[in-house]
């Protein structure tokens, strides 16, 4: 008898007698009920993956009575669904204590999934369980659920462990631009999100390209390009200045090798960026420890992706922006990347410009640098708006 198994992504959907078969179910005709939901990146539903997952889970509760459910959705929607919002029935195979009587008890208190346990008062639930006949078993079930919940959050570290991790993994990546490196105390930090904000042609993309070429000599770089501003010629120009080899042929070889370390993806809406980032996450999770590691992620520019959604509907837009920000910070911390994002400016009060994306974005990046060009020269100015260990207001000039 076929059993429904949760699968991530759009892989094989069911297993029949141990054989994975994608096409065979079509032969069944009308014998099974299929509920098929497709949330693509076409942007029809301009909301966060978490909300999409909630929609899906609601639909799945409706389908709970049927035997077969076909689920077609992107990974970032299915993952929270499987973790938190699946009906408790799905946990029975792994945890036999979550039997029908326990589920009935939970249902009587309005708890149908693990997520419901999070917003309910578990002490009250235990008190109710006490009054029930099979109180011991129920309390065992609650304890089991608590241990499932314990796996759902990030681990606790103590200060020494955190410091060890920072010393071992969270180094500083020099940008190759002397003024900026001196200002930031070495360069941009791995594990942190650095924002470059400034009016147009204030050198933001140039700084990103220069940093990418500097880092690519030793590590891999992912450049997410939203405005067709990635320029291989500029990268070659920057590399030409640092590669110090006599023969042109050897220089060319090194150039090829280093440039192959830079991956460039063009995205034009925020859902495409979520796609790229989730692909990156699964790639980084399974990559081997040796070889060339990815250490730099550049998003040029994130404001072009977020501003369209921010304008239309205020809560969903802000929620999408914050989701993107948290995803970038998670990638930075868990996979030891330095993330560099570009933001542009909008007109503020008194005619002076202020960074775009509003107040809610301000608390997302670790460091914020305001770039501007100095009139009448080739120099640029960098001003610290925010930094974890430097006072804001420090400025420096740099040249590209």
């Amino acid at each position, binding site marked *: 008898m076929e059993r429904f198994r949760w699968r991530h992504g759009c892989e094989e959907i069911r297993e029949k007698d141990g054989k994975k078969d994608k096409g065979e179910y079509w032969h069944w005709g009308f014998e099974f009920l299929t509920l098929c939901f497709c949330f693509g990146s076409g942007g029809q539903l301009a909301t966060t993956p978490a909300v999409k997952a909630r929609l899906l889970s609601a639909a799945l509760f409706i389908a709970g009575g049927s035997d077969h459910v076909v689920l077609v959705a992107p990974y970032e929607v299915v993952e929270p669904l499987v973790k938190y919002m699946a009906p408790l029935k799905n946990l029975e195979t792994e945890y036999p204590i979550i039997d029908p009587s326990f589920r009935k008890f939970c249902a009587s208190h309005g708890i149908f999934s693990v997520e419901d346990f999070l917003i*309910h008062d578990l002490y009250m639930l235990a008190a109710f369980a006490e009054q029930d006949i099979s109180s011991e078993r129920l309390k065992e079930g609650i304890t089991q659920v608590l241990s499932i919940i314990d796996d759902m959050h990030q681990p606790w570290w103590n200060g020494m462990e955190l410091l060890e991790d920072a010393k071992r993994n969270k180094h500083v990546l020099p940008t190759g631009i002397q003024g900026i490196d001196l200002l930031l105390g070495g360069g941009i930090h791995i594990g942190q999100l650095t924002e470059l904000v400034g009016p147009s042609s204030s050198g933001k993309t140039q700084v990103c390209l220069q940093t990418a070429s500097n880092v690519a000599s030793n590590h891999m770089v992912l450049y997410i390009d939203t405005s067709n501003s990635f320029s291989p010629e500029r990268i070659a120009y920057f590399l030409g200045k640092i590669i110090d080899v006599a023969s042109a042929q050897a220089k060319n070889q090194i150039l090829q090798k280093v440039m192959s370390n830079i991956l460039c993806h063009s995205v034009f809406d925020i859902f495409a960026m979520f796609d790229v980032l989730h692909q990156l996450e699964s790639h980084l999770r399974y990559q081997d420890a040796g070889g060339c590691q990815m250490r730099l992620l550049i998003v040029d520019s994130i404001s072009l992706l977020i501003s369209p959604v921010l304008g239309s509907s205020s809560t969903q837009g802000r929620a999408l922006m914050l989701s993107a920000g948290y995803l970038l910070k998670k990638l930075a911390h868990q996979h030891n990347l330095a993330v560099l994002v570009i933001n542009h400016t909008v007109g503020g009060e008194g005619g002076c410009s202020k960074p775009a994306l509003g107040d809610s974005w301000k608390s997302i990046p670790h460091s914020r640098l305001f770039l501007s060009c100095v009139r009448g020269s080739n120099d640029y100015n960098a001003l610290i708006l925010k930094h974890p260990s430097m006072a804001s207001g420090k400025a420096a000039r740099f040249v590209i």
Partner: protein
Amino acid sequence: MGSHAKSWLLEHETAREMLERVQAERPFLLLPPLHRVPIRVGNVVELAGPSSSSKTHILIQAAITCILPKQWNGVSYGGLGHSAMFIDLDCRFDISRFSELLNHRIMEAGSSSKVGCHKMESEAQFARMEHYNEELFALCMKRFLYTRCYDSSEFLATLKTLHYRLQKERQAHGLNVHLLLIDSIGAFHWLDRGSSSFSLEGDNRKSWHLQNVSEAVVQEIRRLLLVHPMLVMATKAVALGNKYSTNELTRSYGKWPAADNQYSRNVTSTDQKLPYREYMPAVWQSFVTHRILVRDTDDDSVNDEHPNNSVFLLEWLMPPVNSLDKFTVTNTGVFILS
């Protein structure tokens, strides 16, 4: 029956004894720069302020004061000697900065205790001092517990399992957590507001929206405080109104002449109205027992000693204290200017 009633009337302790006991078990803490109002275990302190106004630094300062011992190896550090827990909802905590500040505090206390005694006579003494400092550093860092949460589900999961974690810590290391720091409490506000609710399958099913999530958070912290009495300090990012706005760009470029500025930057909020728009739900607002507003100022005249550091203003909103404290953040921590 008679003896029962009598045993009710027998006194256990006098009021004075009780006051002494409570003050010993739950002493009033005066943590600079929050030294104007004494706070103690069981209080919930909310630090509100715009972005980049050193709120996290105040939390770090409190944590360092908590984890340092009162006395160690003959040197007095003035700490509490308890553990501190830091729940990072902003996911921006910098452990290197924390360890830098801790090291500076240890060395400062160590060097100041030598004043009055004879100076270090030999290299061996110096090396021993360094060794003690390192030992103390490791001891203190182990008392600092940290976790981060990327969304409300993880935050709630952390809070629900915190009781067992604390029990385990107490049994394993004999550590008592005295301080719970949350940075920042409004981090998932917009994410939860965006989460629409679809309640199906039963009328008593709670849906996942902002109100329910906030109630669950407050309830969990309240329960935790009953069993593990702690001081809770939470930061909250707010956007101040025009009266208080300091555009960080104008600070370096724009030279607003002082006469031009209609509203003096050093104004206190004298009326009942809050200077910022409150966005946290009522259940959290009523849970908070103390409220502080921090903001930065471009008052450079006071800042002669520390030219590179910004000056911040601290204002007590609840209980209202009609004065502003000025402080700055240096390499050794928060330094009160006035």
